[in-house]
């Protein structure tokens, strides 16, 4: 591996460039015409314009991405997150064209992509799963039959889903028919696949996910968990590591489950095993993310391990260079996603051009962002502007530093709004500070949090 094509944009493209630099790898970044004058494009060793602003004709268009890699003599491709990152076809096309895909094999990707099938594989591997289906539910009638068996509340999920989209919680029999139809339509629109599966829904649970890393030689380790329970409609807003709800023994247990599950699907690279933690302290496997995740920096800050560099190294065939006993979690880290959205208006996108920018800095603050004065925030792409991450010796210290960092953050521009104030409100909220929250938190407290701020 010598030259890596980065099939992404924004902060994650910059993050991958930095990891490549650290490893002495050259970088090529692809970009749409919209993104021509952006930091990743300027910072990479080379850049290739692959299409117009619409993702379907640029970042999501496999032939353009692969051709760009071949044209620029890249020998590897890092897909980042989103876009084509969990596309088994891309992994296959890369292999056919002699490109090292930085991620799992096409086969493992395909196994993980179908969330109903993943449930079946994980059941087999002995992971605890909530009652539900391990194959797509074909009809409304079948949905009613399943509901009869597992009871309410339940959740309908798109088998091809991801990023928290295509999910509906159903709290009673009377809502099932409508929810089933609507969710199927959403799934069809969002993922071009209307298949749904059904799972018991847990009230008052936490979202706990385990970072795993596997090499191509059958070795896997976990790097501890992240608590991503501050969510709005299944979208992560703020993440932290470690979870304030876990004991060391629970951490070892869920970590071991995660590694077992990943190895069971023949996974290679960095991935995430998502679990729900119920009020009784039991973990339930939910799904696997076969990519680097937005929130990976909190794990990096508490373990000191560069996950993106690790992805590249295992993709190049390197054996894992450390064992489970070498992974030490030190202190606490919190990440706030600064999105171009207005929480007071249902998180409506608020895009525009950044005319005034101040990114936080200083001790124990890390900011991953592609923003600069003049950056145009386009409605074509996702709303993530910056990830502000704060480390502290303990949770309280990291929260205090995060408040300091948020106070330094300024992203202004006509039409722009951000989620900064919401984060400030959460970081000042007693319920959050006192041991963290469950998944119902933001839905229940949002009005309150954005009003008092």
């Amino acid at each position, binding site marked *: 591996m010598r*030259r890596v094509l980065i099939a992404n944009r924004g902060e994650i493209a910059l993050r991958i460039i930095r990891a490549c630099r650290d490893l002495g790898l*050259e970088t*090529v970044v692809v970009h749409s*015409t919209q993104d*021509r*004058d952006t930091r990743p*494009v*300027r910072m990479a*060793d*080379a*850049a*290739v*314009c*692959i*299409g*117009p602003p619409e993702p379907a004709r*640029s970042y999501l268009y496999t*032939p*353009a991405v*692969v*051709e*760009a890699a071949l*044209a*620029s*003599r890249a020998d590897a491709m890092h897909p980042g997150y989103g876009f084509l990152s969990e596309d088994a076809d891309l992994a296959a096309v890369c292999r056919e064209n002699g490109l090292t895909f930085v991620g799992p094999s096409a086969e493992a990707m395909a196994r993980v992509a179908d969330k109903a099938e993943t449930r079946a594989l994980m059941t087999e591997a002995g992971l605890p799963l909530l009652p539900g289906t391990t194959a797509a539910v074909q009809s409304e009638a079948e949905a009613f039959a399943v509901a009869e068996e597992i009871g309410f509340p339940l959740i309908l999920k798109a088998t091809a889903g991801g990023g928290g989209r295509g999910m509906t919680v159903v709290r009673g029999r009377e809502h099932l028919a409508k929810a089933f139809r609507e969710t199927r339509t959403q799934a069809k629109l969002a993922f071009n696949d209307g298949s749904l599966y059904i799972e018991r829904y847990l009230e008052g649970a936490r979202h706990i996910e385990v970072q795993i890393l596997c090499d191509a030689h059958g070795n896997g380790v976990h790097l501890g968990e992240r608590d991503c329970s501050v969510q709005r409609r299944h979208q992560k807003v703020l993440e932290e590591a470690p979870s304030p709800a876990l004991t060391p023994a629970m951490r070892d247990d869920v970590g071991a489950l995660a590694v077992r599950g990943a190895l069971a699907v023949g996974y290679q690279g960095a991935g995430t095993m998502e679990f729900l933690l119920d009020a009784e302290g039991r973990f339930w496997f939910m799904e696997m993310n076969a990519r680097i995740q937005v929130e990976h920096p909190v794990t990096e800050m508490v373990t000191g391990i560069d996950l993106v560099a690790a992805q590249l190294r295992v993709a190049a065939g390197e054996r894992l260079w450390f064992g489970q006993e070498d992974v030490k979690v030190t202190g606490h880290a919190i990440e706030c996603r600064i999105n171009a959205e207005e929480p007071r208006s249902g998180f409506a996108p608020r895009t525009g051009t950044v005319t005034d920018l101040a990114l936080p800095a200083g001790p124990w603050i890390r900011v991953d962002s592609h923003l*600069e*004065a*003049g950056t145009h925030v386009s409605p074509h792409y996702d709303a993530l502007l910056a990830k502000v991450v704060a480390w502290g010796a303990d949770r309280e210290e990291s929260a205090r530093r995060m408040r300091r960092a948020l106070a330094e953050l300024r992203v202004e521009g006509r039409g722009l709004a951000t989620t900064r104030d919401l984060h400030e409100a959460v970081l000042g909220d007693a319920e959050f500070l006192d041991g963290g929250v469950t998944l119902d938190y933001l839905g229940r407290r949002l009005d309150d949090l954005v009003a008092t701020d």
Partner: protein
Amino acid sequence: MTTSDTDATPAADIAAAAILLREALAIADSSGRTPARIALAVGGASVEVDWSQTPAAAAPQPLALTGAPSAVVPAAGADDGGAMPGIAVESPLVGTFYRAPSPEADPFVSVGDVVEEGQTIAIVEAMKLMNTITAPERGRISAILPEDGDRVEFGQPLVRLVPLGTDAA
């Protein structure tokens, strides 16, 4: 910088604008700070100088497909022969530019040729698929920009075409 001469702008205005501009620059300069923009107007003359926020060193770097042999091609917009007459026919995708259907064959077109709307003028190959590039209207080829076999980006000008209308103009 735009000097917008409408009808006959009095020479005095032009000269005055020049004086004012020099003055503004000297003063801005002596203030030790670099202005982002100076705009001035005198009668019918107006001048605008814009040092856009994009810092000089931050100007786009060569977006060339470096590393590919004989394939370092300037990016779209960087040097597309904009000074040349005619309209640019741009590449609809990233790929390899070919002037002929096969290495042995004659080029589809040469500079000076008159082509009809829809006529094939080049091929861009991507992922082993041949994408034909056709003339958007009737015209005379005034330039063929990449070399045969060059790698091209999306939007990169390939050929310049001077429209001739449906009849010879």
